[in-house]
């Protein structure tokens, strides 16, 4: 097997760029087992030798602070890569070496890629790579990942290490007069009792106990509770002492000493600054405008609107192609296949299902391409910076805004790409709260429902009501986020502390890889499940079907109508092609027959599993004023929200309706005594807040890493929506509205 090379480094150090440069298209993305952190792997090939490259998540440190850090650490100790390439940003050397020191403390075979050496040079920073290499005792290669400079030399030294030509012993640095004696005492105890030492080095375990590292301590507690408690007691003593004498903690002390060690190395002629370090660079000058108190928010609004426009306007064309293709596929198969269950399954179940999944693909691609530009250029971090104050109130993060906007924060988005957009959020609790609340936004599929109800009952106030609906969705989403953050996802806010990376021009290669891998993940993961579920939904709306006697009844009605007119007219209708002109009597017969078909479809729907559920729910839903027809439509809306309209059409015996052409349904609803403006308001609110469509539910489950959250979203949202609809209907009725 090819030796494994792991790439590690701070976020924004150019790690992913280097990974793309090394592996090109020979890469694939998966997940680390059991967590949602992306795992990218690829192969580097040169002159006949191959290296297996793993791109570890970007981290600043090796504590157990974040999921990314735990994943990185576990990979290093469990998979034992032959060599780790630590990518450090040469223009930001001091802080980047903090991670390098921690690799050295672990005794891991590393070599350092001194990346962005060109940026450093432009900033007047000169780094002596040889000096740094001899002081750290590991190879240091200057590189420019974007252009591929230094790639060959870097891989030469990596493969030398991989072949085992170099010895690596854990770096021992002094952590000060208070820590050092305790550390060596603990080390002795640990080594003497082989405490976790088959996985970790004794000194490193001791260090982690001093840093109160939760992962290592809980492992130790299991392996040897006695010794673990003794170690903890030793840590407690030194902590107490440090707090009394120096007012600090062991972990702070250790960090200080690491930075001290780095400073002492850099001082020995490794780094030379030509200018003042706090000098402003072009990136800072851009920031003076883009994060300006007055201009900044305006530009941000324009950028967000631009992203939205880009995603939903430019994807229309490919979405249209796909729709036409699947429409064509469906109708040509319809023509070939014999009528019956198989045809219905293939056309209405499978093709509509697959078409539904693939219909989102252009949307997702465009959205991720747009977001990748914002992310890779560094602008996304500025958006988080500017909006954090607002979103924090609701227990969210400044970066949450992208997900909300894409989901329909500007009416007409889609929750599926919105849920996936939460990937840019690194704070776990804030991310979960965001992905559970983005489905409240008004996605494009809810709009036909609103349009129908508004046109029927509030035609005069269309614009005002749409605006209120948008505001309502935002208010609902933010308030529910707050509610979740103080109940099921409670916990202190994840520290915001983050870097504003310098602005960089994104590379097309990077954008393309970024967009494609995320889109492909959607197709691969969501596709299979969605296909299965759409078949289930189709079956629910189809089976058990009408009993034969009923079908016979409708057939008799049809025959009666046909026999009432002269034979020639019936023959004319039979022979006529789709869309061809008909004589007066023939078209009147056609209309009558269509009405019978629609009545049969209504009866069939009423009798189906979904129809029975709708009927059974009537006893509950009457509190909100919904009858069985509305219930079925809402059950159908779980497949996709626009289905609410077409199912209502079927339930009112209007036949299959195009969601864009609802004039006849609107007239029917306006005449129906069971409907009132009040009930329409209730239904609008219910549609806004009830269970996300099942594609979204699956994405929520995937992105949160647990089906639990998908089920939660379905149940919680539906209950919430129902309570709101009942409140509106009951209070409104009490006031005689």
């Amino acid at each position, binding site marked *: 097997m090819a030796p494994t090379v792991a790439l590690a480094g701070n976020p924004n150090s150019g790690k992913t760029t280097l990974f793309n440069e090394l592996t090109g298209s020979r890469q694939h993305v998966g997940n680390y087992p059991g967590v949602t952190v992306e795992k990218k792997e690829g192969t580097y090939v040169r002159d006949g030798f191959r290296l297996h490259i793993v791109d570890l998540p970007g981290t*600043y*440190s090796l*504590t157990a*602070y974040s999921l990314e850090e735990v994943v990185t650490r576990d990979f290093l100790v469990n998979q034992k890569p032959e060599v780790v390439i630590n990518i450090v940003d040469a*223009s*930001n050397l*001091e*802080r980047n070496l*903090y991670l390098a020191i921690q690799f050295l403390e672990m005794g891991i075979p590393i070599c350092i890629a001194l990346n962005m050496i060109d940026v450093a040079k432009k*900033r007047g*920073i000169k780094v002596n790579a040889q000096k740094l290499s001899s002081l750290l005792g590991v190879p240091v290669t200057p590189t420019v990942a974007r252009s591929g400079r230094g790639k060959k030399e870097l891989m030469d030294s990596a493969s030398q290490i991989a072949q085992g030509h170099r010895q690596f012993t854990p770096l021992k640095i002094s952590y000060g007069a208070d820590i050092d004696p305790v550390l060596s005492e603990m080390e002795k105890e640990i080594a003497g009792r082989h405490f976790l030492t088959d996985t970790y080095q004794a000194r490193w375990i001791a260090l982690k106990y001093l840093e109160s590292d939760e992962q290592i301590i809980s492992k130790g507690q299991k392996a040897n509770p006695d010794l673990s408690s003794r170690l903890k007691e030793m840590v407690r003593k030194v902590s107490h002492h440090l707090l009394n004498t120096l*007012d*600090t*903690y062991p*972990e*702070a002390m250790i*960090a*200080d000493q690491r*930075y001290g060690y780095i400073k002492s190395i850099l001082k020995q002629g490794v780094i030379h600054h030509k200018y003042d*370090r*706090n000098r402003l660079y072009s990136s*800072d000058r851009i*920031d*003076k405008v883009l*994060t*300006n*108190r*007055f201009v*900044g*928010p305006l530009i941000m609004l324009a950028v967000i609107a631009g992203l939205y426009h880009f995603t939903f306007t430019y994807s229309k064309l490919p979405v249209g192609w796909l729709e036409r293709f699947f429409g064509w596929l469906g109708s040509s198969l319809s023509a070939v296949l014999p009528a019956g269950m198989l045809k219905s399954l293939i056309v209405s179940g499978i093709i509509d299902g697959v078409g539904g999944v693939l219909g989102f693909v252009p949307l997702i691609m465009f959205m991720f391409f747009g977001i990748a530009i914002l992310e890779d250029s560094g602008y996304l*971090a500025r958006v988080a*910076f*500017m909006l*954090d*104050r*607002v979103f*924090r109130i609701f227990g969210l993060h400044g970066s949450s805004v992208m997900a909300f906007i894409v989901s329909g924060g500007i009416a007409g988005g889609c929750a599926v790409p919105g849920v996936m957009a939460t990937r840019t959020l690194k704070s776990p609790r804030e991310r979960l709260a965001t992905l559970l609340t983005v489905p409240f936004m008004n996605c494009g599929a809810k709009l036909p429902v609103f349009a129908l109800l508004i046109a029927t009952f509030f035609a005069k106030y269309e614009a005002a009501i749409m605006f209120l609906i948008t505001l309502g969705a935002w208010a609902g989403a933010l308030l529910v986020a707050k509610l979740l953050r103080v109940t099921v996802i409670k916990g*202190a806010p*994840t*520290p*915001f*502390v*983050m*870097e*504003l990376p*310098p602005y960089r021009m994104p590379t097309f290669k990077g954008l393309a890889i970024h967009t494609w891998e995320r889109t492909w993940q959607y197709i691969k993961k969501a596709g299979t499940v969605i296909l299965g579920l759409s078949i289930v939904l189709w079956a629910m709306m189809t089976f058990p079907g009408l009993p034969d006697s009923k079908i016979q009844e409708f057939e008799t009605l049809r025959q009666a109508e046909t026999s009432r007119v002269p034979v020639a007219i019936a023959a004319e209708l039979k022979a006529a092609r789709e869309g061809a002109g008909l004589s007066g009597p023939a078209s009147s017969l056609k209309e009558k027959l269509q009405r019978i078909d629609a009545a049969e479809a209504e009866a069939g729907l009423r009798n189906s599993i979904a129809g029975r559920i709708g009927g059974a729910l009537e006893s509950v839903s009457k509190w909100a004023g919904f009858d069985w027809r509305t219930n079925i439509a809402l059950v159908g809306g779980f497949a996709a929200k626009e289905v609410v309209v077409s199912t209502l059409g079927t339930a009112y015996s209007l036949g299959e309706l195009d969601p864009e052409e609802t004039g006849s349904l609107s007239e029917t609803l306006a005449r129906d005594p069971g409907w009132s403006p009040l009930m329409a308001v209730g239904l609008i609110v219910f549609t806004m807040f009830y269970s996300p469509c099942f594609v979204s539910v699956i994405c929520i489950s995937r992105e949160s890493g647990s089906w639990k959250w998908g089920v939660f979203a379905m149940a919680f949202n539906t209950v919430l929506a129902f309570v709101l609809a009942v409140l509106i209907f009951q209070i409104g009725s009490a006031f005689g509205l």
Partner: protein
Amino acid sequence: MRINLRKMHDNQAGTIASVKVAGELGRRLRDMGLVPGTEIKIQGRAPLYDPVALRVMGATLTLRNNEADYIEVEIE
């Protein structure tokens, strides 16, 4: 003179004197290089005056005001 980071005004520079917070936030601050002895300079604040952007070791970091509260800075 020692003041709290929150009280510093834009473009003011100083040296971190102490970071008094343990746990997740403390770790995160240290990972980003916010340790005693580090020189910082306030680069600006977000439109709603929170979070704050700092210049640290040649890079720009942001943190919320309530996170900045734990950091004392020595200024001239």
